[in-house]
């Protein structure tokens, strides 16, 4: 086999000790690169490495074969410590064809000195054009500093399976396990888990492919990496964000989820459907997003709090229902797994563009709780918190996740179930005489809600302005009373929230504020800046509406404040943009208006999960003169 080094590469079989690596496996859709990547990550996690995986998903179900935009696969960040994000550029890539690889190269995903393992079968393809394309791309790659290794996956797999398209992914897995020194026994076990639903013959065949890849790499590849392992002392679960959301819904005791298919939210509902089939509960696929929201509201109204799961365009459609639930004071959990917007936008790419829509999207004053998940673990626990808040305050809780958490996997401590997570059974006790359905508490705005089945509590709830008896009332007093108390509930919740803890010192030159999925990447970037001697701290918000107290004090202890968000903000150097015309990113706008602090923003809408290096480089100019 040819190993071509474009620069002198130490050709030693000794293992090189590294702290971390970012590895990508990319193929055409349906060739199994995702399965290879997920299995690789799982084996690494079981071996005691920190991992974070990011799915590489083409927008189409079956993009044309060998297309630059068609890469499907997985990015796996491995480290000798826990990791909270997908990291920076790629150190090593396994590519099933040179065109998908070109897509990754052209997108700037690879380090200049990255190692490339490229399927070599194309050199002798029957189609001369394909062979030529392959040769040209290979030449082109060789002119850079990449280290290119020809990988005869297809040829080697053919000795084991008749159709190497269905098998070379496990060959690639064997190669990767050898290179990174992962335990072969764990790898075999992982294959048994991965193909657990199939028969033993399938498992055996894939183990043979794994072993073949391992043996080939042992023989032919001069590349060995070693990462220090952590000792795993407590059970961990490797989950992606959407799976964690689904499990959180189960753990919260919610029983009904109404949804309509939409990317990237749907996989949460898929998994929940699966779970509910076994445990009980219903995932209702409604005829549209509006119906899904209305169905959840109806279910919540009459029983336990229900949830509806969606992504951006669905959030827009649900807004009328959200307003109704706020107005009639019905608990409801809305999960928005954000994607690029506006309109259909970038369905498979993450963005944090929905914050203001979540807060202010319904017409009129519709105060609701908006919280954002900051990691995989948060995806799980936020469902329990959201359900409790929704039921306690009889209002809507919007939980914002995004595409970068939806499919990202990370090991988290295995949750230990508590009965306190569950919703109470529906109250069916008689309502004592004299009470009114909207007897708002003057301080907190809270009501005691009566639900169908409670004798003596009969009343008709309405989205129309209403008085304490829930009668339609257009008089000024009733209207203002309703507005006031619904708003007060947020203040009441606010009093129960803890001030978020600073990452770094209590004061300094720059405070970086983020929300949602970007926490890990921001804190990693801030760590680097701090290691370089900069006086930088980070603050991450889970509750954005209401915002916990104490934030203003924190802002004022730093010379400068900047938000980091995956959302659009006008570029300050555009000709027409100045402080009076600039549209700030959502959180920056909120902080500026609430605290009258000159909060700046650094944003990225590349459609990729935020990378620590990009944040680091983006923040450097924000530090200002020392």
């Amino acid at each position, binding site marked *: 086999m040819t190993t071509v080094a474009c620069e002198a590469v130490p050709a030693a079989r000794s293992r090189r000790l590294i702290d971390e690596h970012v590895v990508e496996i990319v193929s055409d859709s349906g060739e199994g690169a995702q399965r290879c990547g997920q299995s690789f990550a799982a084996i690494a996690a079981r071996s005691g490495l920190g991992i974070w995986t990011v799915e590489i998903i083409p927008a189409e179900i079956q993009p044309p074969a060998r297309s630059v935009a068609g890469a499907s696969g997985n990015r796996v960040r491995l480290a000798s410590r826990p990791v909270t994000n997908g990291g920076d550029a790629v150190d090593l890539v396994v590519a099933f064809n040179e065109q998908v690889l070109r897509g990754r190269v052209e997108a700037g995903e690879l380090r200049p000195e990255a190692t490339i393992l490229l399927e070599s079968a194309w050199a002798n393809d029957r189609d001369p054009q394909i062979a030529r394309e392959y040769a040209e791309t290979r030449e082109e790659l060789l002119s850079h500093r990449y280290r290119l290794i020809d990988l005869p996956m297809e040829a080697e797999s053919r000795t084991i399976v008749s159709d190497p398209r269905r098998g070379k992914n496990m060959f690639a897995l064997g190669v990767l396990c050898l290179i990174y020194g992962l335990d072969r026994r764990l790898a075999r076990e992982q294959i048994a888990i991965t193909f657990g639903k199939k028969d033993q013959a399938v498992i055996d065949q894939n183990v043979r492919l794994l072993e073949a890849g391992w043996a080939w790499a042992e023989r032919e590849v001069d590349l060995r990496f070693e990462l220090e392992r952590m000792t795993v002392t407590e059970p961990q679960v490797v989950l992606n964000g959407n799976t964690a959301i689904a499990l959180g819904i189960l753990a919260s005791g919610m*029983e*009904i989820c109404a949804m309509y298919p939409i990317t990237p939210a749907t996989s949460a509902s898929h998994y929940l459907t699966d779970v509910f089939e076994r*445990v009980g509960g*219903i995932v209702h696929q409604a005829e549209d997003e509006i*119906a899904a929201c*209305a169905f959840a509201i*109806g279910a919540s109204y*009459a029983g336990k709090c229900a949830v509806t799961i969606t992504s951006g365009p669905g959030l827009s459609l649900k807004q009328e229902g959200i307003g109704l639930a706020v107005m009639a004071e019905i608990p409801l959990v809305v999960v928005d797994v954000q994607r690029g917007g506006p309109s259909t936008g970038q369905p498979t790419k993450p963005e944090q563009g929905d914050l203001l829509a979540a807060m202010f999207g319904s017409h009129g004053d519709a105060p609701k709780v908006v919280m954002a998940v900051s990691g995989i673990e948060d995806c799980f626990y936020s469902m329990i918190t959201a359900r409790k808040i929704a039921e306690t305050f009889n209002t809507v809780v919007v939980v914002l996740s995004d595409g970068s958490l939806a499919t990202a996997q990370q090991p988290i401590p295995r949750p230990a179930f508590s009965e306190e997570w569950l919703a109470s059974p529906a109250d069916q006790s008689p309502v004592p005489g004299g009470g009114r359905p909207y007897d708002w508490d003057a301080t907190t705005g809270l009501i005691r809600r009566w639900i169908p089945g409670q004798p003596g509590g009969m009343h008709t709830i309405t989205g129309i302005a209403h008085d304490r008896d829930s009668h339609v009332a257009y008089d000024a007093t009733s209207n203002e009373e309703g507005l006031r108390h619904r708003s007060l509930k947020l203040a009441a919740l606010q009093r129960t929230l803890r001030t978020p803890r600073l990452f770094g010192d209590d004061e300094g030159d720059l405070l970086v504020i983020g929300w949602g999925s970007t926490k890990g990447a921001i804190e990693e970037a801030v760590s680097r800046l701090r290691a370089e001697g900069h006086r930088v701290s980070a603050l991450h918000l889970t509750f954005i509406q209401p915002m916990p107290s104490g934030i203003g004090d924190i802002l004022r202890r730093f010379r400068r404040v900047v938000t980091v968000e995956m959302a659009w903000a006008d570029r300050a150097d555009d000709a027409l943009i100045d402080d009076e015309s600039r549209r700030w990113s959502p959180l920056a706008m909120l902080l500026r208006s609430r605290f009258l602090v000159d909060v700046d923003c650094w944003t990225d809408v590349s459609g990729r999960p935020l990378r620590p290096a990009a944040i680091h480089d983006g923040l450097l100019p924000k530090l200002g003169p020392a």
Partner: protein
Amino acid sequence: MTTQLPPCLLWSPDDRRPLEEYQTGVPRWCVGCGDNAILTAVQRLCRDEGLAPERTVFVSGIGCSSRLPHYMRAYGFHGTHGRALPIAEGVKMSRPDLTVFVTTGDGDALSIGAAHWIHALRYNMDLTVLLHDNHIYGLTKKQVSPTSPLGTRSNTTPKGSLLPALNPLTVTLGVPNVSFVAQAVDWIPEVLYQIVLAAYRHKGTSFVRILQRCPEFMPGMFDPWVRDPSRTLLLRHEKGIALSPQVAGTYRNQREHDPRDMAAAREIASVDDPIPVGILYHDPDAPRYEELRHGGAIRTAESIRRGLEAELDTFTIWPDP
């Protein structure tokens, strides 16, 4: 599986409540509005069937028709425009023990809520749906509705409406899994009552179109039919509604129709003059979504814990012993 309470199995005549116990508030509909007749029929039904007010829910959308829940002493959900059906579906799914009625109008159900209408028929959940069809938007002051006859002058069609009216009966009868379709008119209260009663007793989505007079915006619209009984086609069958001698004697234009006969139902539905009144279609065996979805298992803290632990097991990395 979900919160389920056993429905009351025993009912004795002593449980009967007087009509007043189902009434609340003073209807704000116009004098002569057909909604009043529908309200009366529904209140009578509740009394006669001994429905427990606390276990009965009236769900509505927006429009004149959708004010009905406010006049029922029961639980009510006056929702948003067009969304009564999905709200009611959620109620029924979460609480199959409740009796759920939906009151909606031609604008609410057939226009802004049209998608929900079609799909509600497919779901066939146990809902009694009363479509108050007055052929006009009333609450917003006279705009053309999907069922407005061709040429209807309204504030949005001052020269007369341009499109033929939608026939909700034929559309409804075209939806797979539809299980109960009937038509009533507000000016024959006895038949209206009988139809609403049959609709309530049917397990599944009962779709009742009620032609309803709007004296304010469609004055005289149904006068030719009100005045001439021969322009009403009364559907008669042993499995259909009971007809008193007075009604049978007045409305002599009758047709024997087996509500199981879909082809005949579609043929009857396609004619709007004379107005067919009665049960067009009834299939008591159509599958109901809530029954298909509910496995019957009761969820407990323990079953949730076990389910969660089993799921977590599949994702767990155990520390090496």
